[in-house]
């Protein structure tokens, strides 16, 4: 340890973290457990920031909507079995970026390999649909879903695509033989 009490490696990390945030135009980065309290906190933070920036009402509502849906989607998996990674289910990363043209909401979390095919098929399918198809699919899912269901991820993704009018970005990275890291990126156009 140096006389200034800080490990130089840590300073280097902090500086790189800072420049990465700036380069990638990130305004918020979070890692940890995602729960309802956090969802409310982030949603109202975003609301205040966007208000201060005098962002259009419709953009504000969309950002709020996507944040809530994405965070609650991760939070739903708190009861998933242990992944063997030391990362607790129901936790993940949450990033909010802002460029000249759009906001980008990114979430990343560990998912069981058994769910990957289903998620991939669902999102690939949604990304092929035009706005009218999305409306039809939304109504079909809403009509057919049961009241007792937790609110499957399906309806959330369809609603996000429908509201943002953008394709949903997604990717997987293998973590171990049981789980992958699932990345989801949603763009909201600024007017």
């Amino acid at each position, binding site marked *: 340890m140096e006389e200034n009490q800080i490990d130089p490696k840590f300073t280097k990390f902090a500086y790189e973290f800072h420049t990465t945030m700036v380069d990638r135009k990130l305004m918020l980065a979070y890692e940890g457990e995602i729960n309802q309290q956090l*969802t409310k906190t982030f949603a109202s933070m975003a609301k205040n920031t966007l208000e201060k920036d005098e962002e259009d009402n*419709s953009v504000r*509502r969309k950002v709020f909507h996507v944040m*809530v*849906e994405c965070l609650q989607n991760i939070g739903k998996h708190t009861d998933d079995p242990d992944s063997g990674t030391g990362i607790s289910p129901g936790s993940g990363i949450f990033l909010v970026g802002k460029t000249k043209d759009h906001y980008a909401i990114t979430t990343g979390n560990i998912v069981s390999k058994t769910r990957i095919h289903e998620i991939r098929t669902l999102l690939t399918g949604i990304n092929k649909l035009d706005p009218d198809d999305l409306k039809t699919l939304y109504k079909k899912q*809403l009509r057919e879903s049961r009241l007792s269901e937790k609110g499957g991820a399906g309806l959330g993704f369809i609603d996000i695509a429908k509201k943002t009018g953008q394709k949903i970005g997604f990717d997987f990275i293998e973590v171990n033989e049981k789980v992958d890291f699932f990345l989801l990126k949603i763009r909201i156009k600024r007017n």
Partner: protein
Amino acid sequence: MNLKKTPLFFKPTPSTPEVMFDPDRNVFEIKGRSIPEHALSFYGPILEWLRAYEEVTRVHTITFHFQLDYFNTPSAKPLLEIFRIMDEWTGKGLRVELLWHYRDDDPEMREVGEEFSQFIKTPLQLVPFRGFAD
């Protein structure tokens, strides 16, 4: 049973809307933001109240106001269920007035109202109001 005619009142919270079901005036209101994590734990008692209310009601006119600034997808199903219950009441000869209030700068919320109305036979009036985004 008297119990069934007790008004239902929930104060608004950051995740759940204000609920005011007044059986004396037969005016029902759901107002605010609905983003509960577990939608059924919030809407379950509301749906139960409405189903129980139907058994005791002898009134002919009911007015139901929906004024949501925002709701998450898990809230959509219980909201649809409320509309279905209202539709059943209409089918039984009650006069049910359904009003969907939306901010005049929020065409998406108007559209959501239109979508709900396609699920039911009872007319849903779409009512714009002037308001600031909160």
